């Protein structure tokens, strides 16, 4: 078993769909939080295969998309500092900030390198002791422990020229903020798979107990997503919303305790600014005092300038689930993957990019 093809079997998918059609009676509105799930749903045409009783909405689960312009501007301002090498995941490169992007800043002469892992960023720091190497730390709970690990490794190996711009975000607090806003009425939530690999399924309990939302944690193959829809429909038809795990091969109730511990040693929760949602309490991670010498914001005196928003772009509304990409006037006209206006068109898992590549509109 290689844990991929087995979960793409067409006959099994038909059987799960058959069961969903059989048991779905009442109209339900489900949100897939994660951009990775949006890609699976769009790529495999899952939305079109579901009964009309099931409405699917995309959520804010794309770290690149939710990074606020003010934070992008900080990354760009850091890149303009002398003797600095910026290391970043590739998705961030083309996201437009207020006035520029990392890609344009690189074209202007800044040393900005795409890395696959913080392991590569650390290696660049070792090889360039006279430069400050800054990693643009974006990502949810899935990624934050790997950044924490890199900071601990830098400390252990005495690497003094490695810094992190911590723009990490936490998922349960933003779901809470979304539910509290009352803007979107949800019945069920497809909870993020690999975020839950780290944090476990327990942090989603509040959504079921306090808000009556059915929750199923699942993986990213088409059968995983279909199974989660089946389990959500089953919970809602029974009128018993709770938290269940469909992705049992990769998620437990407790999560990865070691990863949680490392994250807690290096970071502490802080308010974070989300595109479309503004500041959400306790939804970000900042470096703890013991590790603040690795904090790029503390180490460099930068002036990112005033924040500007992109005219006509509705990424914020799309991330909150109140609008869909085809509702945007810029979609497929002035905003395309080649010339993106907003981040949801840049990231491969952004809603706009998913609709653009796989949508039928």
């Amino acid at each position, binding site marked *: 078993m290689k844990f991929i093809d087995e979960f793409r079997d067409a006959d*099994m998918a038909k059987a799960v769909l058959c069961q969903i059609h059989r048991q779905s009676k009442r109209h339900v509105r489900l949100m897939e939080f994660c951009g990775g799930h949006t890609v699976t749903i769009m790529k495999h045409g899952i939305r079109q295969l579901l009964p009309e009783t099931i409405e699917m909405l995309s959520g804010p689960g794309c770290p690149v998309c939710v990074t606020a312009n003010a934070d992008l501007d900080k990354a760009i301002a850091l890149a303009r500092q002398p003797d600095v090498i910026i290391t970043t995941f590739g998705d961030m490169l083309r996201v437009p900030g207020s006035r520029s992007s990392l890609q344009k800043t690189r074209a202007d002469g800044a040393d900005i390198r795409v890395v696959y892992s913080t392991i590569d960023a650390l290696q660049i720091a070792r090889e360039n002791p006279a430069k400050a190497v800054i990693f643009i730390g974006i990502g949810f709970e*899935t990624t934050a422990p790997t950044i924490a690990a890199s900071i601990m490794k830098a400390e252990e190996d005495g690497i003094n020229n490695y810094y992190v711009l911590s723009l990490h975000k936490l998922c349960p607090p933003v779901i809470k903020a979304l539910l509290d806003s009352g803007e979107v009425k949800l019945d069920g939530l497809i909870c993020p798979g*690999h975020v839950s690999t780290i944090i476990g399924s327990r942090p989603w309990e509040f959504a079921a107990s306090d808000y009556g939302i059915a929750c199923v944690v699942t993986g990213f193959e088409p059968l995983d997503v279909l*199974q989660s829809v089946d389990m959500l429909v089953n919970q809602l038809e029974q009128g018993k919303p709770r938290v269940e795990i469909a992705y049992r*091969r990769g998620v437990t109730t407790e999560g*990865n305790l070691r990863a949680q511990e490392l994250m807690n040693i290096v970071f502490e929760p802080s308010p974070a600014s989300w595109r479309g949602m503004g500041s959400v309490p306790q939804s970000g991670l900042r470096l703890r005092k013991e590790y603040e010498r690795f904090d790029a914001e503390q180490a460099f005196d930068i002036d990112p300038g005033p924040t500007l928003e992109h005219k006509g772009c509705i990424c914020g509304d799309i991330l909150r689930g109140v609008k869909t990409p085809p509702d945007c006037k810029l979609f497929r006209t002035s905003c395309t993957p080649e010339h993106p206006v907003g981040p949801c068109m840049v990231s491969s898992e952004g809603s706009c990019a998913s609709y653009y590549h796989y949508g039928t509109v």
Partner: protein
Amino acid sequence: MCLAIPVQITSIEGSEAEVEFGGIAQKISVFLTPEAEVGDYVLLHTGYAIAVVDEEEAQETLRIFEEMERLAEA
């Protein structure tokens, strides 16, 4: 961004492991999954294993789908 793919560990040395990924050998970190052993499949995310894939649970999930298939045919 939270993409993680199952890869099989072929060797481990300290917190570094080698995995086979699309026919290519690649070095990864098992710092976050000290319980990982040679032969295990792990979920690989940005160069780090974040979980050991539970094969028994995977088989159990597939059994649920097989059961649904039988029901659909009935």
